[in-house]
């Protein structure tokens, strides 16, 4: 660059005497982004040492120029200095544009707010980097459960599925680094395949606020993203090491980022986590260990007007499932429930045996953007995900050690988006996406739970917002999705006939194998979704949000095609081929107060869902293995009502009090009964001491109180017990009693060297070692939840 300038300088410094040099250059300097004029910029004409400063209107005048090509250097305190080449032919007028936002971008990076709001009219809940780091040894679901309105549906203590306002699985969309996760999320015992250490910010939208990603998030959207890399020559990163007493495990995480002032950057992150059997207050939870490995690599160019990024991430997680939960028939289930302690308690081990899950998720993504002056930012993205889920049951003979379930899900997605600033007050986002998904179920010697299918999606959206004045903001959006599924499914002949499918769907039959029938259902869905929102900032402290969203979700493969024994639930589950899409209407209202002393938000909501798909017990069936309860999926009209409350009171610079309360009620409006697995009322209160004069010492004492769920459908049933020759009720529905947990959290910073900070963290969860069971933990029928855990964490930031 310097050589280039010097050469031009040399060329231009030859005075050409024959020329008339009395022309004038008039110019105006504006911001590339929004056209505002830039005052106080310095303009230097190379070779003449003459400099000029722009006035309050961004204008400047340079006299005595020749008919010549000049090099002009423009600099401004908030912009990157830029050189221009300019031919002067007579008196000339020229507009110069500078990237005024670079400095702002840097500022934003420092504040941790790197991405603009995903939805402008839904209050967003954000978990920042510092908070996330406290969950390094745990999971995404654990971190999210810290927000009001979010609970988790657990299978043991390592499969943590986020639940937003009472909804989970296919009704929640997770966006990981801009990619919609396709990781068999339909299963209640399938945890999200996202490493909590690979992200630096989590945004929760309790509604369909992010139409650019999906229109089917009836429960809500979770956006996980990495922090943006700054525009400067730098190399930085962090390394964390933690050990936990419960499960006697450790985790290690390290990341390194190299950035250049040209906008190029590259980042590498890896983490590993291993825990053995966890324990309750009283006993060992046999076979509940976890072994997780993750890696992420990305590089790219990030400048104001163009950029691209290539990213690859790898996630592998091996999770043991409580041995005592592996039961055969309903009689086994009864024995397990009636026993106070799990029927299998072995010595502590790090080994993970069957039953277990072994999940691998690969994610590759390329994205690029270009800012077109006057039009906006055009973005392109292609991503590929490969998810392989292995589930191991206790098997016999030659099948020992072989997975019972082996699903491979490949998803390709292409997106094209345009973010346009249509005026100073309004924005418009439009986009298209297309995706292709293939599910392949390998032959494991166990009938396929999910059939082989190909799925094609086409979607388009438009979202506009209008800032009428300082007080009012309006947002409106619409999205349309077309989905086509091409499925190959084997039905048991006895089921096919008992359901009358042989009359209804006889044209789907491809081949009859006697006891099984191969069918080829082809399903089309046309789904519309939309959102309408208003924000009123009626004074400096208070904001009102109002949002209505319409969402449509196609039935997931398990709702459509389940037909047989679901081993981990020891029940027979039956889907329905004729289901149509679920339609949700959610009205949400938030009053938010933000102030130094006292801040709060109150967020009541109502979510009416028509054709809501739920599963319920309908009968029991006898097999040679004993009795099983039969659960069938059914469509009904459901209503979820609730309120989430957050409040913070700051006593002084050091002391702060946080409060959270979540209430949700779910009703099946057709049958007039409570919905199953609704989170009980829960409240969290926390007192935090923070001293920035004493090494940023932070001490927090948290109380978590979970009430008993009093509203639940009665799904108990009776089985015949040969031992006692009597029918006994199997109580699978009564929720456990309320419980109260105390947690402690502390951290302190030390200057390790000139450029690095060492943070020591110490946490205790379930400080009082309480024995309790959680209604939303599927293992609650078999064992208590976790006992006390001490966690020590060392972090070095460099």
């Amino acid at each position, binding site marked *: 660059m310097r050589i280039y300038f010097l050469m031009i300088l040399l060329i231009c410094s030859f005075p050409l005497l024959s020329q008339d040099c009395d022309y004038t250059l008039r110019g105006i300097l504006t911001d590339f982004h929004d056209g505002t004029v830039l005052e106080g910029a310095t303009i230097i004409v190379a070779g003449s040492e003459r400099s000029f400063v722009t006035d309050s209107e961004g204008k400047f005048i340079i006299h005595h120029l020749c008919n010549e090509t000049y090099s002009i250097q423009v600099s401004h305190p908030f912009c990157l200095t830029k050189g221009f080449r300019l031919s002067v032919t007579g008196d000339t007028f020229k507009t110069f544009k500078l990237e005024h936002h670079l400095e702002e971008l840097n500022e934003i990076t420092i504040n941790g707010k790197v991405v603009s709001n995903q939805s402008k009219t839904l209050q967003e809940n954000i978990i920042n980097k510092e908070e996330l780091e406290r969950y390094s040894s745990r999971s995404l679901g654990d971190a999210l459960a810290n927000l009001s309105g979010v609970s988790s549906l657990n299978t043991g203590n390592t499969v943590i599925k986020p639940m937003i306002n009472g909804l989970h699985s296919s009704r929640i969309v997770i966006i990981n680094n801009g990619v919609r996760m396709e990781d068999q999320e339909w299963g209640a015992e399938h945890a999200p395949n996202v490493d909590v250490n690979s992200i630096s910010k989590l945004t929760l939208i309790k509604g369909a606020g992010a139409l650019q990603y999906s229109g089917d998030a009836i429960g809500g959207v979770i956006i996980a993203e990495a922090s943006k890399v700054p525009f400067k020559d730098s190399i930085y990163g962090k390394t964390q090491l933690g050990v936990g007493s419960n499960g006697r495990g450790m985790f290690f995480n390290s990341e390194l980022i190299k950035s250049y002032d040209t906008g190029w950057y590259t980042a590498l992150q890896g983490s590993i986590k291993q825990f053995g059997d966890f324990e309750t207050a009283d006993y060992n939870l046999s076979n509940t260990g976890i072994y997780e490995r993750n890696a992420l690599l990305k590089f790219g160019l990030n400048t104001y007007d163009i950029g691209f990024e290539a990213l690859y991430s790898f996630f592998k997680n091996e999770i043991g499932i409580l041995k005592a939960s592996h039961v055969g028939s309903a009689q086994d289930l009864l024995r397990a429930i009636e026993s106070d302690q799990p029927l*299998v308690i072995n010595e502590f081990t790090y080994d993970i045996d069957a039953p277990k899950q072994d999940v691998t998720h690969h994610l590759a993504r*390329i994205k*690029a953007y270009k800012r077109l002056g006057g039009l906006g930012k055009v973005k392109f993205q292609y991503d590929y995900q490969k998810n392989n889920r292995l589930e191991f049951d206790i098997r016999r003979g030659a099948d020992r050690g072989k997975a019972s379930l082996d699903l491979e899900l490949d998803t390709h997605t292409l997106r094209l988006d345009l973010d346009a600033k249509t005026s100073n007050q309004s924005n418009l986002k439009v986009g298209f996406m297309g995706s292709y998904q293939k599910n392949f179920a390998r032959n494991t*010697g166990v009938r*396929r739970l999910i059939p082989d299918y190909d799925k094609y999606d086409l979607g388009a959206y438009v979202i506009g917002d209008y800032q009428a004045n300082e007080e009012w903001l309006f947002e409106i959006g619409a999205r349309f999705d077309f989905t086509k599924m091409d499925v190959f499914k084997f039905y048991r002949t006895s089921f096919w006939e008992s359901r009358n499918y042989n009359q209804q769907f006889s044209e789907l039959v491809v081949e009859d194998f006697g006891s099984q029938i191969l069918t080829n259902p082809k399903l089309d869905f046309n789904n519309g979704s939309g959102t309408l929102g208003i924000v009123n900032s009626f004074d400096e402290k208070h904001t009102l949000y109002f949002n209505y969203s319409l969402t449509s979700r196609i039935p997931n493969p398990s709702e459509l095609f389940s037909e047989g024994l679901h081993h981990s639930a020891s029940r027979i589950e039956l889907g329905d081929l004729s289901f149509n899409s679920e339609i949700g209407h959610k009205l949400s209202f938030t009053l938010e107060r933000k102030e130094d002393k006292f801040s709060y938000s109150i967020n009541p909501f109502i979510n009416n869902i028509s054709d809501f798909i739920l599963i319920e017990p309908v009968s029991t069936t006898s097999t040679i293995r004993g009795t099983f309860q039969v659960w069938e999926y059914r469509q009904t009209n459901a209503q979820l009502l609730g309120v989430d409350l957050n409040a913070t009171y700051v006593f002084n610079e050091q002391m702060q009090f946080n409060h959270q309360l979540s209430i949700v009620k779910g009703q099946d409006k057709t049958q007039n009964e409570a919905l199953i697995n609704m989170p009980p009322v829960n409240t969290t209160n926390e007192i935090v001491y923070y001293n920035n004069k004493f090494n940023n010492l932070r001490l927090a004492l948290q109380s978590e109180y979970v009430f008993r769920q009093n509203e639940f459908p009665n799904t108990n049933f009776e089985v015949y017990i040969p031992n006692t020759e009597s029918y006994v009720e199997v109580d699978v529905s009564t929720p456990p009693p309320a419980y109260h947990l105390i947690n402690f959290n502390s951290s302190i910073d030390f200057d390790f060297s000139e450029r690095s900070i060492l943070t020591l963290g110490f946490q205790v969860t379930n400080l009082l070692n309480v024995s309790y069971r959680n209604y939303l933990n599927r293992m609650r029928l078999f064992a208590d939840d976790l006992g006390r855990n001490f966690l020590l964490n060392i972090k070095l930031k460099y």
Partner: protein
Amino acid sequence: MKNIFLLPAILFTLLLLGSCSNDDDTPELVNEEELITTLTVTLVPEGGGTSITLSTQDLDGDGPDEPIIYVSSNLSAGVTYNGSISLLDESSRPAEDITEEVEEEADEHQFFYTVGSGLDVTVNATNFDSDGNALGTEFSLVANGVSSGILTFTLRHEPNKPTDNLATAGGETDIEASFTISVE
């Protein structure tokens, strides 16, 4: 810049075409490998006589059809029977003998016999695993007095051995078959 857009677009098209080309493949039929469809108990009277057969057959596994239960004849009071249990998977052709598999993994399996009230019989396992704990695919049944009631055979996979108590044995039930029998 154009190249950035072009490359993934080409990649995507290739992948799409690649995945379409094998679309005609229909998936392979899965026969449940560990399915037990049939349990047959043969009771041979000591000192000779006609054998008695008890059987239960559930060809569609956990499908909606109920098992078919068959008892060949009544037992005779005062007679001791040598019992043996055979397990078959008749959903595959030819039918697969599962008894062998269970006997090979004797230390992980056990049959339990539950004698219902009213029925006056005594049942004891006569074959054992390598640790000397009961396996029970072979047993002796003494028909004590004239009576009738329910006799249940339960096969547990991975019970806490040694045990004779079904209620605390743990493990997973592979078979639970009840027969109404009479001793005359």
